[in-house]
């Protein structure tokens, strides 16, 4: 992005702003996948920073939405299937697979993604799904940790995440010391970074629905991750998206899995409470 922040002043919103708002009036029109309804708009509780909580789904064209609404056309399912295979494949010195302890993922993993990040008492910090999977691998299976953005990790987070699809995002920020991570994430959200001197809030709170050159800004919700992006032509993690945003505003991006990004993920999950988990979503 070569333009100056001045573009926000001229930020153009499409007629679609009115078209999508129409969904509000008719909640019976919820998008659904194989009968599972997706709540793509949620009422914001009092004192929430947004007037209404809206999934990134609503900011995309009907063609992109159609890819997500059919599990066969959704290319994210190539990785979901590989995650399903890995689930029952034994690995590591303990000779165990995920299935050895957790059984049927459809049962045991239901709701897991919706509650992430989750306070981990032993570690004394919030765990993202990636953190939890790697802890299982190193502590229970005696296997090597996966890299954050590896196909193996994306496949497993997508497969586990899918088991919560349609369930509302609901994180427990009262547990342990979650509040201090939430605070840290909130500070991050409103702090300007980089040569373009932008905070998350400048685009995703003050200008969602508007266009930044040709891209339509969403609220930057995290309910669809890991997500298949048309631009990437593959699945990617939430932290990859964070890094992409930071690169664009010409900031030095934090590392995937860093405390900064885990704090931001914690705060963002809270901002999106009530939206359905859409993993694996399809975005532009």
């Amino acid at each position, binding site marked *: 992005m070569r333009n100056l922040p001045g573009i926000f002043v001229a930020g153009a919103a499409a007629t679609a*702003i009115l078209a999508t708002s129409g969904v509000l*009036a008719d909640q019976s029109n919820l998008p659904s996948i194989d009968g599972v309804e997706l709540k793509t708009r949620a009422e914001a509780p009092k004192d929430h920073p947004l007037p209404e909580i809206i999934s990134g789904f609503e900011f995309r064209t009907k063609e992109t939405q159609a890819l997500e609404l059919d599990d066969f056309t959704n290319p994210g399912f190539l990785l979901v299937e590989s995650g399903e295979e890995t689930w029952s494949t034994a690995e590591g010195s303990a000779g165990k697979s995920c299935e050895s302890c957790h059984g049927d993922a459809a049962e045991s993993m239901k709701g897991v993604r919706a509650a992430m990040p989750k306070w981990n008492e032993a570690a004394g910090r919030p765990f993202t799904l990636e953190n939890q999977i790697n802890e299982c691998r190193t502590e229970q299976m005696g296997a090597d940790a996966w890299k954050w953005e590896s196909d193996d990790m994306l496949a497993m987070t997508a497969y586990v995440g899918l088991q919560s699809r349609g369930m509302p995002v609901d994180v427990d920020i009262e547990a342990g010391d979650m509040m201090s991570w939430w605070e840290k994430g909130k500070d991050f959200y409103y702090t300007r970074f980089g040569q373009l001197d932008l905070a998350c809030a400048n685009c995703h709170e003050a200008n969602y629905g508007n266009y930044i050159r040709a891209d339509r800004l969403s609220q930057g919700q995290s309910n669809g991750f890991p997500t298949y992006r048309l*631009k990437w032509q593959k699945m990617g993690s939430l932290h990859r998206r964070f890094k992409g945003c930071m690169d664009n505003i010409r900031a030095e991006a934090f590392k995937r899995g860093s405390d900064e990004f885990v704090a931001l993920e914690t705060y963002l999950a809270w901002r999106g409470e009530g939206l359905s988990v859409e993993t694996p979503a399809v975005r532009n």
Partner: protein
Amino acid sequence: MTITRRQVFALGAGVAAVALTGLPRVTFAEEDKVQAAIDAFSGGATPETANVSLTAPEIAENGNTVPISFAVDSPMSDDDHITEVTLLAAGNPSPDVATFHFTPMSGAAEATTRMRLAKTQDVIALAKTSTGKVYMDRKTVKVTIGGCGG
């Protein structure tokens, strides 16, 4: 619902943005390459603009993955069926996208795929019948060059 002041402003700006993107998009050199590809397919005959319908988004959200479909009217009988359909992209580094080969056992001369478009340009579908006729359809797809795709 009520329209906020911000939305009214935003709508006005949206119209301006649409006006700005309506720029010419195919150079003469590209048109030559496409014409050569059309001639190669049709054997020099001028394709008739009929019977083929090409479906593509008016605006693609990302040029890396653009859904595209076509359907050709044909009895698909042994005597009269579509043998080949080729897709061309006028503004790509190379215009060829894909060539589909049909038989009477295909039942219908239609297909859907996803393609890459380097920029805003025309997508062309050419169809050949077993009786030697060539049909064509052409659609412009706007490809938005991202401000901030991440």
